[in-house]
């Protein structure tokens, strides 16, 4: 079990939290928990409560969409240094996809109820979180749109 001090250090090492103030990082470490997932293990399931978001410290995950009776559709892979999970920001707070570990993964989760409570109490904290999440969401949306263009497909 990693103590809160240790979690603060892990947060500081991750690019998402690298440029935060020490005070905010200490505050947020109280919402953090360390995790380890084995290859093939599901981190989150579509439709389940999105009560966390995750920082990937080591390893890779794949976002999938389940297809009844068939193999899931693979959406995107995410890797060391990245974050995933923003459904905790938007009601009804449910995961949009399955998330599966492609290999051994070490992650830090941030508890959504804890975070939302702290953001309500301190709006500046909320602003800092949104300021960092929005570029990530924007980049992922742009990447999805680029892939929709099917740039490498047969020419028409």
């Amino acid at each position: 079990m990693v103590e809160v001090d240790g979690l603060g250090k892990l947060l500081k090492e991750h690019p998402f939290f690298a440029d935060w103030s020490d005070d905010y990082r200490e505050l947020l470490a109280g919402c953090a928990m360390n995790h380890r997932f084995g290859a093939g293990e599901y981190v989150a399931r579509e439709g389940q409560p999105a009560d966390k978001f995750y920082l990937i410290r080591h390893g890779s995950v794949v976002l999938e969409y389940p297809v009844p009776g068939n193999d899931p559709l693979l959406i995107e892979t995410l890797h060391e240094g990245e974050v995933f999970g923003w459904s905790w920001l938007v009601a009804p707070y449910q995961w949009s996809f399955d998330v599966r570990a492609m290999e051994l993964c070490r992650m830090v989760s941030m508890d959504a109820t804890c975070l939302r409570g702290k953001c309500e109490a301190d709006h500046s904290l909320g602003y800092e979180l949104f300021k960092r999440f929005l570029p990530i969401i924007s980049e992922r949306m742009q990447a999805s749109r680029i892939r929709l263009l099917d740039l490498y497909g047969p020419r028409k």
Partner: protein
Amino acid sequence: MIPRPFRVLRRRRELGDTFTLELEADDGTPFAFQPGQFTMLYVFGAGEAPISISGDPAKGPLVHTIRAVGTVTDRLMALKPGDHVGVRGPFGAPWPVEKARGHDVLIIAGGVGLAPLRPSIYHILANRQDYGRVAILYGARTPKDILFEKDLIKWRSRFDIYVDVTVDRAEVGWQGKIGVVPKLIDYASFSPEDAVAMVCGPEIMMNFTVQGLQRTGVASEDIYVSMERSMKCAVGYCGHCQFGGRFVCKDGPVFSHAEVAAHMSVREL
């Protein structure tokens, strides 16, 4: 302007609609070219098409990797060993492999865009000690559409080069990355202020890749792109490939982004 006769030595299918032709001059003379240059391949009775050279500039034969997208390239795909084509060239401005000496190098390709970049990869690997960190970043539509897969695996197995591959989509069983090529820039290790990037692929992909490079701090004048426009004469005479005040055939197809940035944003061009 007169095509020289070349004989097809080998034809190899790379992907569904993409194939490689190895050619040798009828008179046996070696064909000298610089990485990034192209030739006009003439199919007797069908016409000519500009095709990037995809082989090793240090040794023969003359190699082209071609995607069959029209009349001439369809006829090229139908050629067999022993058949003849006409070759004009080489033409065009090459990749900046000399400017890149002493610098980190990023080679970023999408789809069949890896073909025009392969000669520069051969050159850099043959002179590896002259370059800093070297990264090859490649994106394809699906795992089945990865071009030169054996080469990518061989390059990746070296200890002095970084290779990363992503696909737009994949099925269960694929253990690699799924995402867009510009994202691979984030995972590579290089000094942005000391890097030269060579980018080739669909123009939209190049635009987003250039943006990704600039976000890391790579200067516009150190990013090189390969522009594609309709080319006919290849010698800057007919005007078909005019791109702003430049001809793609003569002044390109490789340009520094700084040279062409303003024109790339003009829709009519």
